[in-house]
């Protein structure tokens, strides 16, 4: 069986490195983006099985990534969004656009792994 592919869009470099290692350890293949634009490019080329994206990112926001995936590419790839406390409204928007799950920052990477596994099960 080939590895499940995940696109991770996050602009904090330490965090994304941390998550990359954590998820690679679980046997996933990771593609990293620092903003939404890169994320969209990666999604289009690699057709990942799961997308992890921060909501607030430079230039192209996480919301736009979701919108692009659901409305332009029209694919049902599961999406988990990261948001900071107080961005409830954005989270609601993310869900209405078709996000599958969300994690409020600060979050525990272990919990993320559990949710990733659940969505890819």
């Amino acid at each position, binding site marked *: 069986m080939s590895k499940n592919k995940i696109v991770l869009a996050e602009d*904090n470099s330490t965090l994304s*490195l941390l998550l990359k290692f954590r998820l690679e350890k679980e046997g996933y293949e990771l593609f990293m983006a620092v903003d939404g634009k890169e994320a969209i490019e990666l999604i289009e080329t690699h057709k990942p099985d799961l997308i992890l994206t921060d909501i607030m990112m430079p230039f192209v926001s996480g919301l736009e990534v979701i919108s692009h995936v659901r409305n332009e590419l029209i694919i049902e790839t599961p999406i988990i969004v990261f948001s900071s406390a107080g961005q409830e409204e954005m989270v609601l928007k993310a869900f209405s656009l078709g996000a599958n799950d969300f994690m409020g920052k600060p979050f525990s990477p272990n919990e993320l792994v559990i949710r990733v596994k659940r969505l890819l099960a």
Partner: protein
Amino acid sequence: MIDIQYFVDYYNDFPFLVKLVWIVSGLMFSAIILLTIYLKVIRYYLRKKDKEFTKFKNEYEALLVEYLYADIESEEFNKEQQAIILKIKDHILFKNKRKMIISILYNLMNEVSGEMADSIKTLYYKTGLIDYALTRLKNKNWYIIAKGIGELTRFTVADVHDDVIKFIKHPKREVRKETQLYLVSLYHFEGLSFLNELKEPLSEWDQVQLLEILQKLDDQEICDIRPWLRSTNDTVVLFALKLSQIYNQFEVKDSLMDLLSHQNKSIRIYVIEVLTHLYGIEAKDKLKANFNDLSIEEQISFFGLLEKLVIPSDEPFIEKHLFHKNFEIQLLALKILKSINIDKFMGLNNLPTHKKSPAMLKLEKIA
């Protein structure tokens, strides 16, 4: 040689003022040369620092990730981690590297929680970084103290409470603020007790930061906020109002009603908003009774409340204000009327144009 002698003589013949100007010019010229050379040095140093910054950042990020994942493998403190700690201990002897490591850890603490946050904290203790933060508290510069407290807050270092608390009355507001944030981060709502005797104003910025910390906590058990609603410090009252809105404090409605007649206008306006949020229909009669004595902003807020909490019996009041002098109120009144009595609302269309309010005319244009 002759030339120089010639210039010296020439110079000596100058009037005093001209001599002075030449001397000053000479000094400025030397200053320019010196500053230019020194600028080169500074720029060299800054470039080097930038380069090191990227290098160290990558290095320490990798190291940190390694450290954090070593933890998952075994419960006890393993060798690999020990080695990393020793390495970091060496590095933090240099100020630049120390700053870098702290900033990486600090930023990561913003993003992660749970077991990973705990391991970062352990690392912070074991490498001795905490001791540097503690020495900062003893510094004579206020901004270094503030920075130190901020760091202790981020890494939730509780055992230095006594060292930090003494800064709560520091003359510099930035230091006071960091202390407040520390208290709330560690002791949650209990930490807010400094509000009881706060004399200085609590700025919007401070309030936002305190609320952010509170909202990120797992423990959302709020304390009794009534004393703060009655505070003589208006900014504390405003802060308590925000708390009552965010934490849906239905039980403080009576105190809120009292605040409707507070002498501070921004408090009165905000109370109406909070009451709107908390379904404070009790406020309606009181506000209706002295509606004409309210400021325009309060009147608008009150119509905002009615928009949400209107019942059919409010109709006469609404109707009375269809022609209020303020456009926003006209518009709100129309909207509300539409929601409770659509027939009457449609009937307004039959009014001759010159008898319509500006809001009605605008609405018509759109429809």
